[in-house]
C-alpha cells in the first residue's frame, strides 16, 4: 500500500501533466494578475524543489517558501545554552537536524553541538524523545532533551511527559513553536514592506493533522485569501495549487482540504487535549525574526518539574533580552518570511554549504537553503516539461 500510494501520487507523470495543464488554464483566467502562493512546511518546499514544480508553473504563478523549518527558527540562545550544558557534562539529546545547527557565538570553543561533542562535551543524537527516555533510564547522569519542533512534533513529547514514565534524571528544554502565528507574521511582513502580497496559503498537511484545517480559516478571512491543506506528494501539491487558483479565480476565500487521507477539519483532538494539559501558549522568539505573539509552547503546572530551563538555570529569552541572532550577511530571516531566496545570499553554496553551514537554514533537510543547495533545479518536472515541450 505504501508503495502503491507512492506510485499513484509521485510517479504518476501523466496525471501530473494533466493537472499542470489545468493550472495553466486557470492562470490564464487571472486577468493578467501575478499570484504568490506560500507554503509553510519544509517538506512542501522539499517536494517543490526536488520535483522541480516551480518549472511547471505559468509565469504568473509564484511559489514561495514561508516559515516551515523549526530548526531554522530556534533562537541561538538555546543552542548556546545546550552547548554550555553539554560542555558541563550534562548529556544533551538532540535530533540529528540540530546537531550541526550553528549558534551565533562560540561557547567554550564550540559553535554547535557537533563541535561540543568533538571537544569532549556530552551530546547524543537520537531518533526521538522516546529514545532519549530509554537511554536516560539506562544512564546515571543528568540529561536534557532539546525539544525543537512545530505542532506535528508536540505529541512525541506531550504523551510521554504525561505518561509519567520520564526518569528523574531527564529534563526537557522546550523550543516548540506554532505555525499559524508565524504564517500570519510572514503574510503581514510582505504587506508591511509593500511587496507582492501572499494570495494563497498552501497549508502544512502534517501540522494540520494535529491542529486541523480550522485554524487556517482565521488567516484566510483576515487577509481575504484562500488556503488549501496539502499533502506532500508532487501530485498533492499540484492539485492543491490548482484548487487555490480555482478559488482565486472564483473569488472564494475559504479553506479546503486536499490531504483528506490524513487531515480533518478539527484535527487530532486527543493530542490537542494532551498538549493543553502539558503545555501553555506563550509569546516566543524566532531566530532572526524576534518575538511573535502566542507562538511558542512552555511546560505548565506539574510538568514544570521536567523543565530544563528551571533545573539548570537557563535564563529565559525575554523581549528585552532578545537580540538579532543571525550571522552577519545571512539572509535566513528574509528567506523564512518568503521575502528572499537562497540565491540572494552571497554565501549560498560558496562559504555556506550543507557540510559547513553558516546560517540555520542550511542545516536541516527542511531548511530552504539546504533544500535548494541539495536539489536546486531539475527533477521530475523538468523531464516532463521536456517531454511535452514546455
Amino acid at each position, binding site marked *: 500500500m505504501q508503495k502503491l500510494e507512492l506510485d499513484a501520487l509521485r510517479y504518476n507523470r501523466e496525471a501530473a501533466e494533466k493537472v499542470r495543464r489545468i493550472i495553466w488554464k486557470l492562470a490564464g483566467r487571472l486577468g493578467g494578475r501575478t499570484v504568490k502562493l506560500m507554503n509553510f512546511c519544509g517538506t512542501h518546499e522539499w517536494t517543490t524543489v526536488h520535483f522541480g514544480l516551480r518549472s511547471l508553473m505559468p509565469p504568473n504563478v509564484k511559489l514561495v517558501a514561508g516559515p516551515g523549518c523549526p530548526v531554522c527558527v530556534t533562537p541561538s540562545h538555546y543552542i548556546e545554552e545546550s552547548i554550555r550544558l553539554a560542555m558541563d557534562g550534562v548529556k544533551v539529546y538532540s535530533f540529528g537536524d540540530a546537531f550541526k545547527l550553528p549558534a551565533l557565538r562560540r561557547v567554550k570553543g564550540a559553535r554547535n553541538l557537533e563541535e561540543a561533542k568533538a571537544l569532549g562535551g556530552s551530546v547524543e543524537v537520537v531518533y526521538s524523545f522516546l529514545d532519549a527516555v530509554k537511554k536516560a533510564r539506562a544512564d546515571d547522569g543528568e540529561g536534557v532533551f532539546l525539544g525543537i519542533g512545530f505542532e506535528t512534533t508536540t505529541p512525541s513529547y506531550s504523551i510521554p511527559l504525561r505518561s509519567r514514565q520520564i526518569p528523574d534524571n531527564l529534563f526537557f528544554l522546550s523550543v516548540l513553536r506554532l505555525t499559524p502565528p508565524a504564517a500570519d507574521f510572514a503574510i503581514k511582513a510582505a504587506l508591511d514592506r509593500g511587496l507582492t502580497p501572499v494570495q494563497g496559503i498552501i497549508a502544512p498537511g502534517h501540522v494540520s493533522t494535529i491542529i486541523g484545517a480550522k485554524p487556517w480559516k482565521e488567516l484566510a478571512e483576515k487577509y481575504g485569501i484562500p488556503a488549501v491543506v496539502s499533502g506532500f506528494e508532487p501530485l498533492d501539491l499540484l*492539485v492543491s495549487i490548482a484548487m487555490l487558483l480555482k478559488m482565486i479565480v472564483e473569488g472564494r476565500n475559504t479553506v479546503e482540504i486536499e490531504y483528506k487521507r490524513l487531515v480533518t477539519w478539527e484535527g487530532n483532538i486527543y493530542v490537542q487535549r494532551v498538549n493543553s494539559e502539558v503545555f501553555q501558549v506563550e509569546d516566543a522568539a524566532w531566530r532572526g525574526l524576534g518575538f511573535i505573539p502566542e507562538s511558542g509552547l512552555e511546560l505548565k503546572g506539574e510538568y514544570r518539574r521536567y523543565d530544563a530551563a528551571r533545573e539548570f538555570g537557563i535564563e529565559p529569552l525575554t523581549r528585552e533580552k532578545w537580540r538579532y541572532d543571525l550571522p552577519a550577511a545571512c539572509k535566513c530571516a528574509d528567506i523564512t518570511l518568503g521575502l528572499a531566496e537562497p540565491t540572494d545570499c552571497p554565501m549560498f553554496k560558496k562559504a555556506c554549504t550543507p557540510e559547513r553551514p553558516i546560517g540555520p537554514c542550511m542545516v536541516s533537510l527542511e531548511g530552504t537553503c539546504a533544500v535548494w543547495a541539495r536539489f536546486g533545479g531539475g527533477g521530475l518536472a523538468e523531464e516532463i516539461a521536456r517531454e511535452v515541450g514546455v
Partner: protein
Amino acid sequence: MCWGVPARVIKIGEYTALVDFGGGSTREVVLAAKDVKEGDLVMVHAGAIIGRISEEELLSSLELYKEMAVSLADGEERREIEEYIERYKQLLGVKSGGES
C-alpha cells in the same frame, strides 16, 4: 525530524505502538492517535503516530482529481485523466485487498 513516514501498525501498547516501516524495519513509537488498530496504515512523525491514513480517502482524493478534470479540462483531456484515475483506482482495489 519533520519527515512524515507511513508505516503499518504491528502491535498497540499503552501509550506506544510497534510499527513496521517496510522491509522489516520496525520501531517502538508514541501512539498519538486514538482511532488506530493493529494492521492500520499510519503516519509516523518524529517518533509518534500522528494519524491513521484513510485508504478510503486516498481513493476519494483520486475521485477529487477526476472531478477537477471534469470541471476544468475538456474533451479528449478529460477522458484521458479519467482513464488514468480509473486505472489507479483499479490498482488500489486490487492491492489494498491483498497483501500490502
